[in-house]
Structures are given as C-alpha cells and as structure tokens.
C-alpha cells in the first residue's frame, strides 16, 4: 500500500490508460503517453546544467517512508529479497537495451517496465511476462506485482473529497525551466496540473471557451508541486484552492492571488476504490511541510533565510591583493562578496584593514595572517583569512557562533570544499557565471552555522546545536556505523561488484569501446552514517566535505529523499597534487567526477576518473545514464539489507550509555531504570565524590581503586575478579550459563596487552576479557569487566538483564554518557547514533551533550595546536605554530551541573559532576578519543579508548 502512494505520486504516465478509462478526453493531452512513451529518459535529464553538473533532488513522501519502514520490518527480509532480485535482473536487461540498442524495438517493452521500477514510476505494464496483470493500472508497483493483487482495478469506484497541501512558489516561475505553456497558464506553471478545457479538444463550441468547467486533472507536469506532493492523481477534479471554489473560469485569478512562497490547501474530488479506503484515509492527511533545508537545497527561499540573519554580522569576501592603481575604480578589488546585508556591509567597509594586515604582517612576524578579531558595536566578529596566490579569502563570523579556537578549522573546511568543487579558489571565484552558485554555497554555509535549527524539520530529532555540528563536522572524519559482520560483508561485496565496473552487456568492454570512466571507489551512507567505504582517506574526506556542505547526510536521515542524483566534476585534493606533479606526462589530463545517488535512506558516492585508463573527458560532460542506473541498481540491491541495518540502529546501544538525569537525585526513581535505581551506589557517592580516593565503600572502587592499582599494576583480571562470587577467568566453555564465560580469546588478549600504554594500569588487563564488546549486542555472554554483577543485592533476573548490555566503564554502575572515537588513518569516527541519544531523553542530558561537544572543541584544538604542522595546511606552513605547553596527549575537564529552575529554597540544588576527557593516541594507530562519563568511578580513559576501539574492527 505504501508503495502505491509513491508510485502514484511520481506518476506521469497513468494518463494513457487511466485517462482513457476515466476521461476519454485525455488522449489529446500533451502529456499523454506518446510523449512519455520513451520512458528511458530519466527525470533528472532536464536538470543537467550546461557545464554538465547535476543536482537533482526529489522528495518522496514522509508518511510513505514511514509506512514502508514498517512494512519492511513486518515482512522481514525474505519477500524483499525476492522482489529485489527480480528487479535486479530486470534492470540489467533493461539497461542493455536502453543504452546500447536504444532503437531496438524488440526489447523496448521489457525496458519500459524495468525503467519504471527503477524510477519508481508507475507505468502501464502491458508486456509483463505473466500477462495476468495487464489490466492493473494504478497498482503496478513492485510490491503489488509480486503480491498479485488482482481485481484492484475492478474495485468499486466512489467519488471522494480529499485535501492536499502543496507548496507553491510564484517566484519560481521566472527561473523555472518549464516555459509558461500557452494554454495552461498558472495552473500548469505554478501548480503543475494540466487541464485541457473541452474547447481545445475540439469537442466543444469555441464560444463556450470561458464557460465554467470542472477542473479535471488531465496531466501532471514533472517536478511541479502537484507531482511532488504525490496525492494529486490524474482524473481528480480540483474543487477548491484554499477553500475558494474554483472552476476553469476563476482558477487563474485565484492562483494569481498567491503572493509568495506558501503552502496552499487544495480540495480535490477523487476517484477512489472502496477497498482502498485505508490508503485513502492516509492520503487525506496533509503532507508534511517541505523542510526548510530541502527548500534551501532547491534554491528556494534563500533571500528570505538570509534576511532572517541579516542583523548578524557575517561575510565572505574574495579580495584581490593586486590593485591596479592606474584605474582606481570603486570596489574593484572585490572579486566576490556575500551576503549584501547591512551588518556585512560594515565589514565590507573595512576590507582595507584585511588587505593591509595581510600585506604587512607577513613581513613583520614572518607568517601569513590567520585571523583577526573585530568589535562591531556589541558583536565580536572573528575574521579568518586564506591567501591564495595574489588573492585573499576573508570569512567573518560572529564569535558566539564560532570560537576563535575553531575558526581556522571552519575556514579550512570551506576552502577545501571549494577546492574540491572548483579546483582552486581562483577558478571558483573568478569565473563570472559561478556567482549564483557561490551565493547558494555560502548561503548554505552561513545558514548551517548561524541557524542550523531552521533548516531542520520540526518533527525530526532534537535540533543539533552549533557546537555539536561544529565539532563533528570539523573532525577530519566521517561518522561510521558499526554493523554486524555478515551485513558488513554483504555491503562490501555489493559495492565491490559495482566497482568492478562489470556491467555485463552494458559495459563498454562488451561493445568494444574504451571505458568512459574508471571507478576509483565509492562509499555508502545509510542515513547519516557511513557504512562502507572503498575510497582512500583523503578522497573520502573530500567527498564527505561536499556532502556535509550540502547537508546531504541529514537529508538522507530525514526520510524523505525520493531520488537524489548529483553529478559534478571534482578535484580531489590528493589527486590534484599528484596530477600537478605529473603534468609533463604524455597522458591526457585526468579528470575526476563525483556521482552521488540517493534512494531513500541510502546514498552512494562514487568517484570516477576520466582520462588515464579511461577515455579522456572532453568539455563539460554530463552524467552518464549507465553509471547512474548502475548505482541505483546497487542501492536497490542493498535495500534488502535495510532491515538488518535498522535492527542494528534499534539495538540497545553498545557500549551502553547512561542518561545524565538519572544521576541527579531530583529526578529519582521514576525516570530511572528500576533495576539500576535500587542498587545505585552513585547517590551515596555523590556526597563524597570530592574526597577523591577515600573509598566510600563501593565495590567497583575497591576493586579498581587507586590502591589496588598501585600495589599491583600488572594484576590480572582473574585476580581481582576472584574476589567476587564469580570467577570470571574460570568459566571456559559454558557460554549458556550467564556469568561463567569471559569470552576472552587469546588473540584479543594479546592484542590489548600489546597496545597497553605506559599509563595503563592493572585495569586494562581486564579489558582483554571484553573482547566481544562490539559484536552483536544480543549475545549473552558476561562482560567480566562488569563487576556490578558481583552485587549480592541483585536478583537473578536483573543480573541476566545486565548481561545483555555492554559497558565501557568499570565499577558497579555504567557511568558512560557519551563518546566519540576517531580513527585518523581511516578518516572515520564512531559516536552513539542519533537514536541512541534520543532514547536518553531528559532535561540535563541534551545540555550535557552540547557541553561535551563544546568542550571537545577546546580539547581538539589543544591536540591540533600541539601537533607538528601537518594535515590541511601542512604545505603552506613554514614552521610549526608555537605551543608552549608541548605536545598534548590527554586533556580532561570536570564539569558540574545543576538542574535548571531549582525552586526549593531550603535545600541547595543537587549537583552532578562528570568528566569530559579527550585523548590522542599516536600508537599503534592514530586515534582521537573523546569521552564523557560520570565522576563516581575513577576511570582510566585510555582503557576505555582501547575497549571502544576494539569494537571498531574494520
């Protein structure tokens, strides 16, 4: 059912048959089947720009997605598999025909069907093999095909009224590629509904032209609001617009009254099937509003959004340092500027400062200028600089948005993104026709920084705060989702299959042609998580910067991507350098292209190379349909894994996390997990926490406390464990009995032992036991580290429950709130998933996470400053920046928080203290590890780092 809606929503081609059945007039419609019978044209084809770039984003319906997710969950993998494998087969045949022998008539029918499945467009499937479903008109979705829903079309039809909300933007009319068709007027141009009045069909009397006539939908214009909303079907009758009754006579007037971009409610009379009432009921619901982010990506509303932050001083300027003094024209040195608000004009006014400082300071201190701080009235503005050849990029941002500590990272990321997209800053800014695109680029940039919440759907997860996005986006890494091994293997093999470019009959080899592109590698995102990567690290970062900048990752998690196709030439930084060094090579210049295809929650980014082994690219190449379709096929193939991935996302967090609110007595037992509340030593510890090592009698403390560590730093776990009832080391094979298997493989033990830092104390020996930490969380083996099970107070059931969870911290209670682990070499990081965080709702916890991210900015800045120059600006830096404190390995901050709005005058507000600790490891693999945990247990963060990284087996 769910699928059906989409099929309809994107459908164009119903016209032929459905039209014929419902409204015999439709045969003459310009949007009838004849025009679209060549179904091979992908819908994004019209959107390719002159330079070959493509940014095509089509939304599917949120509710449809939800329903689909539900359906997949219910159905399980089996049905999906069948469905998709069938599809897959079809895809190949289809594309063979399509691209290599497009003129062949014989293959066309199959082609058509497959194309329709690929694009999730409803096509009349006249030539289906079974032949039995020829008559089904509006139900030819993959799901329904397989389910064999007969007789649907024979269902009793009744007329129903439905209300549909569409987003209309009159401003888009001018820029729209759709020309104002002569007959259609605003109805076509604005709404995208094709209505052919009777007179034009030659049946009516020309005199009756202006007669009132019901507005039957005869066709829908591609990419129009009507088709995007997905609920206006051909054959429907438009009854009212915003509760104003409309007919052919007044529709143009009514529509012309819409002043600006707005959501309009349409009332339609539709033909419905009785047995389909549930679907109808769902359709009647108003479509969720299109999120601001999507509108921004579509290039709408930029002016409006920019206006709303006009009072906040921010600017980007690209200035020329070479001034031709002979022709002193006004503002001649400004090569590019954005935005044009009042606050930014003040900054523009002082560009002389930027130019002078840049020019002068290099001579004074011997280094290029990096930043300066200005005070505009009450606003403190930090200005970041980037000098390239004889031009200077200046970015000004308010201090409360981007602390000076992090300004350079932000500027560096923008510069790198621009370089990836355009090759160099000069080619980005100095090409005249780039201006509108750069405006859009920087609009996105500032919107994301200054008002990230406006870009998100109200309905979506809690709005990420600036410092959170700042920190995570600033990491030279991509968020990674650990998957169960079998899924991971599957994903990787599917990706590898694709990357082998073995497109069968579709491939250039088959036709004896030189390959168009060499696939350098690809990476796969599910929602905002990277789940597979076959790209070298630097390329991955380049791709990821692009995706981050265009908000593609949050977009994919917002569940509303129907189809996303992006194609553009890119200049991967690593390759650009090697390219430059091999200039004199006789080989034709290599060029690189980035292809991003998104379907629902999956998004695959493919890096292609032209030139070199493949055919040289000439001019501005647009996307090649074969490659796009191959990626789509891959994604469809991967969709069968969605259930598995979702299961991983829904799994209880491993390592398990605590919510900060549980540790505040103010919110006692009600919010708290009962099993934990009864036996919590934390409350008693809160009072005495400051006393440090004076053990307050907690079991975990006494086992792992300072004293024990000191006296025997090499103490093994079994020693300490044997103090309890259960000897963790003795349980060998009996994994069934809870509490007896340490699940410690010799290998893992050795590995951890080898990794142990000099700092590591006895506790880290024990981490060898938690080898299975990151394996499937359901596995019932005890974590020997989990000494909480020694508690006699626990009932057996509770104990069992606790075994199901993994825990990073030592001691009786799980005290871990949040973590981020970055693998520098692979360019990935892991952190609790959004869902895991969302589960730990509370008033303090989101605050805590925000604080954690903010603090991490500082910790990471300390790491960065103390490192010898490397990374993004390495080549430019003459010498390492001075950092008096020397290389920082570890840095921690202890915070105290109180509940907000503490009203009780008599008692002081309860407090909770927690650590935020960051650690940088260079050996054996460079890692950065940030963790946030409750103060009650003296943790050795390095151990946690090891335990966590152990789970990150790649």
């Amino acid at each position, binding site marked *: 059912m769910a699928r059906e809606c989409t099929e309809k929503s994107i459908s164009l081609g119903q016209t032929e048959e459905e039209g014929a059945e419902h409204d015999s007039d439709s045969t003459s419609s310009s949007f009838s089947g004849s025009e679209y019978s060549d179904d091979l044209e992908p819908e994004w084809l019209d959107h390719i720009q002159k330079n070959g770039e493509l940014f095509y984003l089509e939304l599917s319906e949120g509710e449809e997605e939800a329903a689909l997710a539900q359906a997949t969950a219910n159905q399980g993998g089996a049905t999906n598999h069948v469905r998709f494998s069938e599809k897959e087969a079809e895809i190949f045949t289809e594309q063979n025909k399509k691209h290599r022998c497009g003129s062949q008539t014989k293959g066309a029918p199959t082609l058509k069907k497959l194309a329709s499945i690929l694009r999730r467009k409803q096509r009349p499937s006249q030539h289906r093999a079974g032949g039995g479903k020829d008559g089904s008109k509006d139900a030819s979705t993959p799901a329904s095909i397989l389910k064999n829903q007969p007789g649907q079309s024979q269902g009793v039809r009744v007329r129903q009224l439905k209300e549909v909300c569409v987003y209309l933007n009159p401003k888009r009319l001018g820029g729209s590629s759709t020309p104002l068709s002569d007959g259609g007027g605003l109805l076509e141009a604005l709404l995208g509904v094709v209505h052919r009045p009777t007179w034009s069909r030659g049946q009516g009397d020309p005199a009756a032209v202006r007669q009132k006539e019901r507005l039957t939908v005869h066709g829908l214009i591609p990419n129009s609001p009507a088709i995007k909303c997905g609920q206006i079907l051909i054959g429907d009758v438009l009854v009212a617009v915003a509760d104003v009754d409309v007919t052919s006579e007044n529709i143009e007037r009514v529509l012309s009254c819409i002043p600006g971009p707005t959501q309009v409610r349409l009332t339609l009379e539709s033909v419905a099937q009785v047995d389909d009432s549930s679907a109808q009921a769902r359709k009647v619901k108003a479509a969720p509003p299109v999120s601001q982010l999507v509108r921004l990506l579509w290039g709408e509303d930029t002016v409006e959004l920019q206006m709303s932050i006009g009072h906040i001083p921010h600017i980007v300027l690209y200035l020329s340092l070479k001034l031709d003094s002979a022709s002193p024209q006004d503002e001649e040195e400004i090569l590019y500027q954005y935005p044009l608000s009042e606050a930014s004009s003040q900054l523009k006014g002082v560009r002389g400062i930027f130019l002078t400082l840049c020019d002068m300071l290099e001579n*004074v201190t011997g280094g290029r200028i990096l930043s300066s701080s200005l005070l505009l009235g009450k606003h403190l503005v930090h200005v970041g600089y980037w000098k390239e050849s004889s031009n200077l990029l200046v970015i000004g941002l308010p201090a409360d948005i981007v602390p000076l500590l992090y300004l350079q990272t932000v500027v560096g990321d923008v510069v790198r993104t621009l370089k990836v997209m355009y090759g160099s800053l000069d080619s980005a800014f100095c090409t005249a026709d780039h201006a509108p695109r750069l405006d859009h680029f920087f609009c996105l940039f500032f919107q994301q920084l200054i008002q990230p919440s406006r870009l998100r759907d109200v309905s979506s997860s809690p709005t990420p705060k600036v410092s959170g996005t700042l920190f995570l986006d600033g990491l030279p890494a991509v968020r990674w989702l650990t998957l169960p091994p079998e899924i991971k293997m599957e994903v990787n093999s599917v990706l590898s299959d694709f990357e082998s470019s073995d497109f069968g009959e579709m491939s250039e080899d088959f036709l004896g042609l030189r390959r168009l592109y060499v696939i350098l590698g690809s990476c796969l995102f599910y929602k905002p998580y990277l789940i597979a990567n076959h790209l070298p690290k630097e390329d991955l970062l380049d791709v990821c910067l692009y995706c981050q900048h265009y908000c593609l990752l949050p977009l994919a998690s917002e569940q509303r991507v129907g189809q996303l196709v992006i194609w553009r030439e890119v200049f991967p930084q690593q390759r650009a350098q090697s390219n430059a060094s091999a200039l004199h090579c006789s080989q034709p210049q290599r060029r690189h292209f980035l292809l991003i295809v998104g379907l629902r929650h999956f998004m695959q980014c493919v890096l292609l190379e032209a030139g070199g082994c493949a055919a040289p690219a000439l001019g501005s190449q647009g996307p090649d349909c074969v490659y796009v379709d191959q990626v789509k096929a891959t994604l469809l193939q991967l969709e069968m894994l969605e259930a598995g991935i979702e299961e991983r996302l829904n799994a209880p967090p491993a390592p398990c996390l605590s919510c900060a609110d549980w540790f505040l007595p103010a919110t006692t037992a009600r919010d708290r997990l009962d099993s934990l509340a009864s036996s919590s030593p934390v409350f008693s510890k809160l009072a005495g926490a400051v006393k440090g090592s004076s053990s307050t009698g907690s079991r975990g403390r006494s086992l792992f406390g300072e004293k024990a560590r000191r006296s025997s730093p090499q103490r093994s776990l079994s020693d300490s464990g044997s103090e309890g009832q259960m000897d963790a080391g003795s349980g060998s094979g009996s994994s069934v009995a809870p509490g007896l298997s340490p699940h410690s493989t010799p290998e893992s033990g050795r590995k951890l032992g080898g990794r142990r830092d000099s700092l590591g104390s006895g506790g880290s020996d024990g981490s060898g036991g938690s080898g299975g930490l990151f394996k499937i969380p359901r596995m019932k083996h005890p974590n020997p580290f989990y000494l909480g099970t020694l508690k006699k107070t626990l009932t057996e059931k509770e104990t069992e429950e606790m075994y199901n969870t993994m825990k990073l911290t030592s001691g009786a209670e799980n005290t871990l709130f949040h973590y981020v682990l970055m693998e520098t070499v692979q360019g990935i990081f892991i952190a609790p998933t959004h869902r895991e965080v969302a589960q730990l709702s509370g008033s303090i916890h989101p605050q805590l996470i925000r604080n954690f991210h903010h603090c991490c900015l500082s910790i990471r800045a300390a790491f960065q400053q103390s490192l010898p120059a490397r990374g993004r600006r390495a080549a430019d830096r003459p010498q390492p920046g001075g950092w008096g404190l020397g290389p920082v390995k570890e840095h921690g901050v202890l915070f105290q928080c109180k509940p907000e709005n503490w009203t009780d005058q008599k008692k002081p507000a309860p407090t909770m203290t927690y650590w935020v600790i960051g650690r940088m490891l260079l050996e054996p693999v460079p890692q950065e590890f940030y963790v946030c945990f409750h103060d009650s247990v003296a943790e050795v963060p390095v151990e946690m780092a090891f335990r966590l990284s152990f789970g990150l087996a790649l």
Partner: protein
Amino acid sequence: MMMLQHGSTQLLCLTASSGVPLFTRGASKQLPFSVIGSLNGVHMFGGGQGVVLSCCETEGGGKVVWRVFQDSVMLIAVGGGGQCDVGGGKEEEVRLQRLLENVWSCMVLVLGQDELTNVRNVERLKRDLRSCFSLIDQLLEENQEGILGNLTHCADSLLPPNPTLLQEAVDGFAQAADSEFSCLTVHGRIAAATEKWWRLAPQEVVLLSALIRSLSASGSASCDYPVFLPQGSPTVAHRLLRFQLLPGADVCVLCGPTPSLHRAESGVVGSFWTPLVETLRDCLAVGERCLPGSVPLRPDVLALLLINRETRRSVSCVRTLANHPPGDPSLPSKSRCWKLLKLFYIFSTTRYFTQEETLCVSPEERAQRGNTEDFVLGLSHQPLQCYLVTEECKSYGLQTPQHQLFLLVPLSVPTFALRTVAIQTLSDIVAATGF
C-alpha cells in the same frame, strides 16, 4: 624578510588622536616607522567605520594586539611567536592583552592620568615617559622566576613561618608612619601587609610590588618615590617610602606629605624592625618555596600556583624533587616549570575557569577583552577541574569557590591519581596556613 625576531615582543605606544609615536620598547630591532604607522593606521581606519580592531594572529603564533586607553594613548603589542617558549594562539593573546593593561597602569602609576590624557606637549610627554621604561621593560621581559602577579593580577605572596609577629610589626609601623598602607616584601613577594594595603585594587598591589622590586634592585637602602594609583587616585600622587631591612627584605609605606623619608628611616624603621631580624631571616630562608617548612607538600608536586580568589593573593613555587636528581632529563628544568605553570594558568583560565577581573571591569573594557571569553561563555555547565598530559609533565587545575590551584606533577604519577594529589595539596596548605 622578517622584521621581528621569533619569540620577541615589541611594544608600541602612540597618541591615539594623532598617531604620533611616543615610544617603542622590547625587541632588539625596532620595527620600521612605516610598519608602526600602518599598524596604527588600520586601527584608526576601523575606528572611523565603527569597527574596533582588537587582535590579529598569524601563522607560527605571531600576534598583534591593539588597545586604546582613555581615548588618548594607543598601545600595540606585537608578538613574534615562533618559539616554543611562547604560548601559541590564545595563550599568547591573553599574555599580550595583560601586558598592555599593565603597561598602561604602569604609565599612570608613574606619570598620573592627567599628563597622559591631556597631552599639551608631545615632546615633553615623550621625555617624561622615559621614567617608566625600567618598569615597562621589567613587564616585557618577564624573566623573573616566581613572579606571576603580572599575569594573574593576584599579589605574589610568601607565607612566613610566624605570620602574626610580622603582621603586628607591619601594622604598628604603618601607624607610626601616619599611614594605613604598608607592606613587607621578601624576595619580591608580599610577606605581610596592612589590611588597607590588601584593599587596594589587585592590579595596583601587583604593580606596586613590581615597582618595589625594581626599586629594591637598584640597591639603595631607602627611597621616596611618588606614585599615582591607577584606580584609587589616578590624578593625586602619593609617596611610596621603601626601606631595605635586610638584603631581600624591604618594607614600604604609602603615605601623604609626611613623614619625611629621613624621619621615617631614623625614627620608625629601626624601632619596629630591629627586634624582628631573626624572624626576617627565617622568612628569607623560606625563599622561593613561599611556603613555610611546616606545610607538608606531597613529594610528587613539581610546581604549584595557589590563588585565593577572595583576597586576591597567590602563592607559587617550583620545587626540586628530592627523589630526582636536579639534572634528571625526564623532568623539565626549573625555568621551564615556571613557564609551563604560566602557560597552564592561561590555558585553564581562558578556556574553563573564570578570571576574577571579568567580574569587576567596566562593560566596555569587558567588550574589548571579550574575545578571550568566547569559549568559556559557550559552556553550559560549570567547569571545576581540568588536567593536561603533555610530553613533559602533567598539569592539574582545580577551582573551588575560594581557591584556584594549578599543579605540575611528573609524568610518573598516574593520571587518575592527579585529582587526589591536587585535592590533598590544597587541603594541606589551607589547613597549615589558613591561606
């Protein structure tokens, strides 16, 4: 190619209205006049457009900080950066900001605010300003080990073994000299002072200590020096009488026209301080440890800085650890420890802990220094403690409502024990001395 050497700092002083250079100090080679002019020019240009330029950073840690005082004097500090004994980024900026504040206060202390704000004759002002140079150079060089007051704006103190005796002597001495302001300095740190002395603005106490140190370094037995108090009386001069009691121990009194230096020296000093010579010797013996021997310090504390946030006093010391030979390469040298302690103080206070003055400075001053706070203000919870593990040592900072403690400990101490060490050190010192 580079005009300023790495690691050196140059201070430029100009008149704010006309941009006439008044003096430049620091760095062996003076910046060319054109550069000085441009540095001043960009700030003035911004001022005309309603934009106040406050600081600037270059690669390699170079920094420029601008500040206009009382709309009359422009001070610009240029830090060369580049060397490892200079803090990077933010730390350097805070150091330079502090330097400018201190230099301005120092100019007021010596010349009075009137002469600086109503400049009638620039040439004469230039001449007069020369009298500040020794003090300014002292601020610029920052080579005095164990003196952190310029940075913390908390008076460097020494806790004498028998404080009550000295306190009584200082109180009595002040009374006899017709004053309420008197203090005893040992090794340039305040060992005892009258209550009124502590009530002076923290910055004044710090500057007076610096002045006493530079006067005492001249070697004279006594002197009479006119001073303006930058906050208390910027326009009316007082007299600072200083008497050397023993080498390294000086007593000072801040007074009006009477008594004369001679009368005070002959009549008052001897009667109060001669009986206390032995006590003073005990004080001198405390030396750079700043803490009496009775205070037990944990053996693994390399260096410490303890600030009392209420009285605005600080105690600091760097120790030679008994169980490590002095030449142990695994431990940072003594001067390096002082450097690290300073840097760690700035690091902690710019990022996590609040600096006290931010509470008492005027709003516009606050705005000028705002960029040092942009990070702290973004934190939603209150930081209490922080630590840093570097290649040389471990540093631990701790803040309570009353105290701030900064510790350096050797790498051999496990990280999880740092907190215990810090808490115990704090409670030991407070219990033993009531600091």
